[in-house]
């Protein structure tokens, strides 16, 4: 089962593939360090540029960006108390007080080492858990695959938290977009309105760039943050090899943070910020001096950063094996896989083992490279990136978005469509409609429809075919649990609150 992992290793060390990971990590740190930009946005903008690249080069870039951005978010979190990414909020609690005490350099070193350890643990979890899970899912037939898609959508809608009605609207919108184009079986046009450009359906990259890149750009231009107070020279940074011995007491926090991050990553809908908060709270609870936390305790930075990086590769376990992404970044990465003709799900491991296992290695090397690139070279110099004028940054991203989307088919129609999705995405974002269900709806919609129709053909039109075997029934039960579970939990919490108030 694991022999494919070793077979994939030599290809990962090919110069271009390895270089892609290095560039990805550097780019990810830069993106993560810019408040308002995120790994999701960076990967969305990157995906169209990877069309002409070898799959492992493209995936290496994505793995590097994901790892790098998770650490990069810690830079403004420590220096300015502005989390570069949502997952870095918990890093501000102790990172910023450390910077005020003149220990900003050490805080960033703790962040980079902890991020790297979390990333390594997460990559190992992906390598160990994904292959056996994929073997199980290989046994699925069309009915089961249909239920897996339904389960995936239900879990991302109901476990994300927030308003389930808005989650359902997002998912319905995504699934509807997936059916635009030619019918996969009969070939008749659906909602193309005579536009030849829509016959092949809507390319996922157009939707990704519109939904995930345009709203942050508008935010950048709407409220330009002033970040010109950062001075790299005042960080008090010493070489990382001198700082490492000071961190030897954090091993329990690293271990705990890794477990929490991996677990949260596997759960659909949770994400890095929840992992970082949980890890921070657990580490503070078990600390001998909890009163020091929040006033510049380096272990607080270690707890948050380990967990938010441990969430990265593990979020891809359900994404690669079942086609259900755990986070928004994982959803965008699924889009990146589709661009290269790699359909996430059980068949991916059977048909493209070199690519999928190579991707796992790239996650591991990305996490290792984080210490070398982020730690030794970057700490001081990357802090200065925050001085980059944000309106200029916004205008450059707009140009990259246009180039990326235009390059898919070489037509402006796609660019206009991307702008349309961008406007919809901005409104959705502001009104707190979750965006991941839209992407997942687009990915799983066509997949679910195809398998549903196949199952119905096998069952000669009898809908009972969807409930005929145990696996299908288990998946239905899981879907029901995912829908009802959060409601019951909310009721339980409300009743406990009421009891508490009455007492």
């Amino acid at each position: 089962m694991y022999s494919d992992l070793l077979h994939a290793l030599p290809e990962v060390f090919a110069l271009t593939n390895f270089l892609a990971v290095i560039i990805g990590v550097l780019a990810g740190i830069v993106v993560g360090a810019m408040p308002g930009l995120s790994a999701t946005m960076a990967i969305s903008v990157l995906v169209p540029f990877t069309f002409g690249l070898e799959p492992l080069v493209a995936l290496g870039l994505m793995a590097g960006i994901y790892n790098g951005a998770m650490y990069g978010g810690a830079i403004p979190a420590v220096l300015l108390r502005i989390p570069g990414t949502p997952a870095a909020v918990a890093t501000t609690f102790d990172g910023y007080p450390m910077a005020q005490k003149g220990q900003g350099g050490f805080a960033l070193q703790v962040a980079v080492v902890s991020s790297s350890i979390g990333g390594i643990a997460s990559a190992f979890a992906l390598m160990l858990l994904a292959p056996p899970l994929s073997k199980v899912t290989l046994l699925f037939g069309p009915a089961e695959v249909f239920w897996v898609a339904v389960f995936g959508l239900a879990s991302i809608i109901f476990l994300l938290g927030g308003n389930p009605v808005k989650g359902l609207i997002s998912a319905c919108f995504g699934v509807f977009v997936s059916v635009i184009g030619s019918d996969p079986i009969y070939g008749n046009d659906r909602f193309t309105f005579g536009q030849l450009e829509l016959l092949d359906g809507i390319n996922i990259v157009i939707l990704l760039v519109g939904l995930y890149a345009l709203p942050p750009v508008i935010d950048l231009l709407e409220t330009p943050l002033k970040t010109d107070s950062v001075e790299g020279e005042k960080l008090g940074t010493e070489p990382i090899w001198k700082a490492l011995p000071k961190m030897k007491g954090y091993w329990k926090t690293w271990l705990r943070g890794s477990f929490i991050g991996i677990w949260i990553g596997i759960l659909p809908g949770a994400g890095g910020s929840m992992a970082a908060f949980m890890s921070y709270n657990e580490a503070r609870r078990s600390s001998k001096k909890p009163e020091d936390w929040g006033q510049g305790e380096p272990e607080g930075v270690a707890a948050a950063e380990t967990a938010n990086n441990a969430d990265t590769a593990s979020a891809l376990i359900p994404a690669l094996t079942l086609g259900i992404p755990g986070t928004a970044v994982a959803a965008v990465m699924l889009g990146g896989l589709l661009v290269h003709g790699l359909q996430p799900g059980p068949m991916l491991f059977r048909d493209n083992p070199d690519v999928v296992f190579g991707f796992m290695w790239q996650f591991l090397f990305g996490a290792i490279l984080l210490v070398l690139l982020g730690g030794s070279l970057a700490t001081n110099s990357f802090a200065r990136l925050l001085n980059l004028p944000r309106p200029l940054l916004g205008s450059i991203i707009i140009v990259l978005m246009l180039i990326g989307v235009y390059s898919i088919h070489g037509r402006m129609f796609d660019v206009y469509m991307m702008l349309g999705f961008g406007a919809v995405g901005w409104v959705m974002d502001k009104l707190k409609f979750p965006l991941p269900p839209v992407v997942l709806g687009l990915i799983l919609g066509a997949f679910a429809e195809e398998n549903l129709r196949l199952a119905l053909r096998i069952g000669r039109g009898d809908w009972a075919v969807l409930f005929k075997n145990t696996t299908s029934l288990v998946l239905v039960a899981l879907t029901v649990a995912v829908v009802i579970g959060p409601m019951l939990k909310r009721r339980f919490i409300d009743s406990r609150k009421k009891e508490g108030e009455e007492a």
Partner: protein
Amino acid sequence: MSEGHKNRFLRPETLSAVGILVVAAGFLIPTTDLRSISALLPAAMLIGLIILSLLLLLSDQRKAAAGEAPEKVTNSPKRVIGAFCLIVAYAVASDLIGFYISTVIAVPTVAYVFGFRNPLGLAIATAIVVGSIWLIFDFGMSQDFPTGRLWQN
């Protein structure tokens, strides 16, 4: 779409719900021309959207009746509309007069309008951006860009 709507029917969430309802109902009409199996999923999604938007509308109106403030959408609507209009104008200009000319105009214009007003910085940044694009995409990757419909005609 700023805060403080007096009219409860102009709350952003209510307007969105009505918008979804109208668009979904509009898209539902062509499903009648499709084979039933082809129309199954799209019709299910559109009917779902109609029902869900009604639920959203009811819940927002209930909030309005209870005196709850509407969802805050933006602090500076003019900047948002301006940003979006500039982006659309850039896309249209690329289509009509070509990518390079539009980019040379758009990069400094967007940055200037939104607060970066250093002329030297703008000139250097524009030169670097356009030069890098030409070097990487045009020269290095033989990528085609819109040449401008006006010149083609």
